[in-house]
């Protein structure tokens, strides 16, 4: 399983890279850091996206990593090759997600909203007496938003158990290295006390990701998983480099990347 998922991840990274190189636009760094999380969702059974009646709802809160999701949705047959190829063209797929795209549950582009929206979805799951989950992947810099904390507190108070938040902890924002700042010092202390299932994992280990999600689903608590990741993961010269937040590789750089990912 782990090997199979790793192969899929590499293929998705390759495809993303090809598209960014061709279209000369995209956020490679923060996309590559969460590819393994997304692959676990769609290929590792963590997200029940194809249920006919009540599928899980998924929000990629860090919507600037949309290109990986486009490639996945295309691979799963949810969007056509033509649609994928429209990325970067006027009127085509853009730098954020929207619900006009098949398989996308929420518009993205502004940070700090998704956890509260997921709280609303989890409320509905409870009200309708169903078991669908609201799952979101947040960026780590995004956790500065006050609305994320409003949501954390609300979810605790209302014991919204049908909810899983995963933080792509790649430790790099657009301009800064995010060390263990107050937010990330507070989370591991506060969340268990607030009734959350809290876990820190290696966000590039499929075994750890999948077992954390499985534990979340049976924990009967809202879940918060901090996935420690590497921005630019998979291509040596991109890893942990601020400039790969939204740089486009040169031809030579691309050759090296292809070799590493194949």
């Amino acid at each position, binding site marked *: 399983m782990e090997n199979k998922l790793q192969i899929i991840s590499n293929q998705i990274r390759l495809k993303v890279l090809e598209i960014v190189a061709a279209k000369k636009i995209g956020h490679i760094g923060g996309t590559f850091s969460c590819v393994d999380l997304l692959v676990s969702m769609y290929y590792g059974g963590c997200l029940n996206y194809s249920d006919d009646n009540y599928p899980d*709802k998924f929000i990629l809160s860090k919507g600037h990593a949309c290109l990986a999701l486009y490639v996945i949705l295309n691979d799963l047959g949810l969007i056509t090759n033509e649609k994928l190829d429209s990325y970067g063209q006027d009127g085509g797929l853009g730098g954020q997600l929207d619900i006009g795209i098949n398989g996308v549950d929420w518009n993205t582009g502004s940070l700090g*909203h998704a956890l509260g929206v997921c709280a609303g979805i989890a409320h509905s799951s409870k009200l309708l007496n169903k078991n669908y989950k609201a799952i979101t992947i947040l960026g780590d810099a995004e956790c500065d938003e006050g609305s994320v904390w409003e949501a954390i507190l609300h979810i605790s108070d209302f014991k919204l158990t049908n909810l899983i938040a995963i933080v792509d902890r790649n430790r790099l924002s657009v301009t800064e290295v995010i060390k263990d700042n107050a937010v990330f010092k507070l989370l591991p202390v506060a969340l268990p006390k607030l009734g959350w299932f809290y876990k820190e994992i290696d966000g590039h280990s499929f075994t750890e990701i999948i077992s954390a999600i499985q534990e979340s689903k049976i924990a009967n608590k809202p879940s918060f998983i901090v996935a420690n990741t590497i921005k630019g993961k998979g291509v040596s010269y991109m890893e942990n480099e601020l400039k790969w937040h939204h740089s486009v590789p040169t031809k030579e750089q691309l050759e090296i990347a292809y070799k590493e990912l194949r």
Partner: protein
Amino acid sequence: MNISNDTSNKDMRDAFFDEIYLSSMDNKNIVVITNDMDIFSLRELKTQRPNQFINVGVAEQNMINIASGLASMGMKVIIYGIAPFVVYRCYEQIKFNICSMNLPVTIVGIGSGLSFAFDGPTHHAIQDISVMSALPEMQILNPSDSASAKYCSDLVLNSESPFYVRMDKGIHPKIHDLNKYEPFKIIKQFNNNVILSSGTIINNVIDSVKDKDIGIIDVISLKPFPEQIFDIIKDVENVIIIEEHSVTGGLGSIFSDQANILNLNFNIHLIGFENKQILEYGSREWFYNKSGLDVKSLTKSIDNILNG
């Protein structure tokens, strides 16, 4: 709970929320959310259907996000709180999660205009129409009495659009005999001159034109603006727009913009608050007096226009 159909002695809030309460008892998909504000007619809902009533506490951004999550799953969501806090504090959440997703969430802003005059400028709602009207999907209702408030609830419960309902508080004089929602209502017939007004300030308007040959139209739906009004008033000499809102971005602006788009020319006069910060404390009447919205000042302004 016994709920009277007669709204004449009802607080406007209760006239609206009694209907929400009754519908909620029949329809489990209606969810009411507040940022810790008490409404008499919802106390029963809170007790009888605790799952359908969520007090998020003083956290407006979260309130809007939760509402949109619920609405995306087929729930009909009614939010209420003091108007400026449910409009300005969480504007991006409204723009992004409710409007860009086009979800059936109704935001009831309690305390239109200077309803909370003494609580100061943070509690005034005199730019709320301006910011809400900038959101393409948002429809705006501004009832002027308990009857119109009651029927606004019918509209929002039976629509799939986002709504902002600008709601006064307290018992106000009865203006309308209604048995269904109507987007506007002629409340005084006219010949050559007409006043368009909206909300409870219309009571001052009524008192200021008693012996004058000028009509009054109460505009309840501010957005979409009822275009039928343009036909009805097409031959008038003067259109005076009187509102308890900044003259920038309110009914006057909506009317003027729409008239411009349709290439219609009217002799328009705007009466409302100047577009400047109010940093004083006092009663609603005191502010009316200072701002030309009291009956005496309105009478004078209208006379000046008519004698032009």
